[in-house]
């Protein structure tokens, strides 16, 4: 099983995303922004970072990159795509997910271990979670405030497209505490926090059991493997 990890100029977390894919049991394949060929991958991760220096709007220029034209086409045909942080911003700028992300309410770059509630497990990337499971993964962003117009929010709520909500603390002023979304089909998921930084004991968030032992992010990657095996 091959999972592509895209590198744009300014991407930071591509190596961690590739590592997460490997730890979950799949083979990471590096995809380059200028290449329209996805090299027969079974799924794609758009990792975090600051693609194109966040010029114009976060993710706006990456959304125009050659690799994205192929990803948009294949995502609309059912290819599983996970957008993390800047990758989520790329997904909204590509219109694969609705809404937009603006500067955090308090203007600060926020870096913390964040509790999330899993609101929807009917996706390629969340099927190994249980409904309403509380997970902790790192959050690190400056422009993570999710916004959408009232009609879109109503649709997201009504159709169960909100996949993750911030739990206990809404760190960035996101509407309806939205941390992550899915598309109607459930193959595309985007979220601001970083599952790929919580996949290996010793390097994840603290848990009551032990320091840095949190591996809640791993299930994103085992979920997609599960959905591909059972496809």
């Amino acid at each position, binding site marked *: 099983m091959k999972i592509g990890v895209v590198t744009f100029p300014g991407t930071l977390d591509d190596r961690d995303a590739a590592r997460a894919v490997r730890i979950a049991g799949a083979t990471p394949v590096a995809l380059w922004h200028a290449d329209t060929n996805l090299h027969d991958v079974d799924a794609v991760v758009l990792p975090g970072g600051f693609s194109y220096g966040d010029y*114009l*709007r976060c993710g*706006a220029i990456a959304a*125009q990159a050659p690799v994205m034209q192929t990803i948009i086409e294949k995502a609309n045909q059912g290819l599983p795509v996970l957008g993390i942080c800047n990758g989520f911003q790329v997904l*909204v*700028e590509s219109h694969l997910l*609705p*809404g*937009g992300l*603006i*500067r*955090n*309410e*308090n*203007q600060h770059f926020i870096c913390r271990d964040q509790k999330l509630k899993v609101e929807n497990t009917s996706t390629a990337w969340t099927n190994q979670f249980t409904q309403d499971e509380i997970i902790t993964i790192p959050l690190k962003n400056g422009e993570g*405030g999710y*916004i*959408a*117009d009232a009609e*879109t929010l109503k649709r997201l709520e009504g159709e169960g497209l909100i996949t993750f909500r911030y739990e206990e603390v809404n760190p960035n*002023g996101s509407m309806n505490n939205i941390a992550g979304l899915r598309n109607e089909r459930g193959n595309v998921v985007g979220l601001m926090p970083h599952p790929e930084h919580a996949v290996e004991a010793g390097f994840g968030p603290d848990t009551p059991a032990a320091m840095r032992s949190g591996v809640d992010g791993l299930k994103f990657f085992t979920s997609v493997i599960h959905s591909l095996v059972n496809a």
Partner: protein
Amino acid sequence: MNVPKIIVEVMPKADLLDPQGKAVANSIHRKGHPEVAAVRIGKRIELHYDNAPTDADLENAKQIAADFLSNGVIEDVVAVTVEA
């Protein structure tokens, strides 16, 4: 130098929080100007041309402004004007 250009002005939507504008407003108040009620910050984008922009150029610029230079979810294009 007077380059022929089309100016695109983009603003965050009026009904959305503009955290940047809010922070600047706070600083203006600290500088002793309580008369400034609020600040909103947008973008001015200049498209330069070799020759005076035609009507077709203006139409194209409006399209580029709507599709790419702004994100309709969070921003409005408030003006697209030729400055020849």
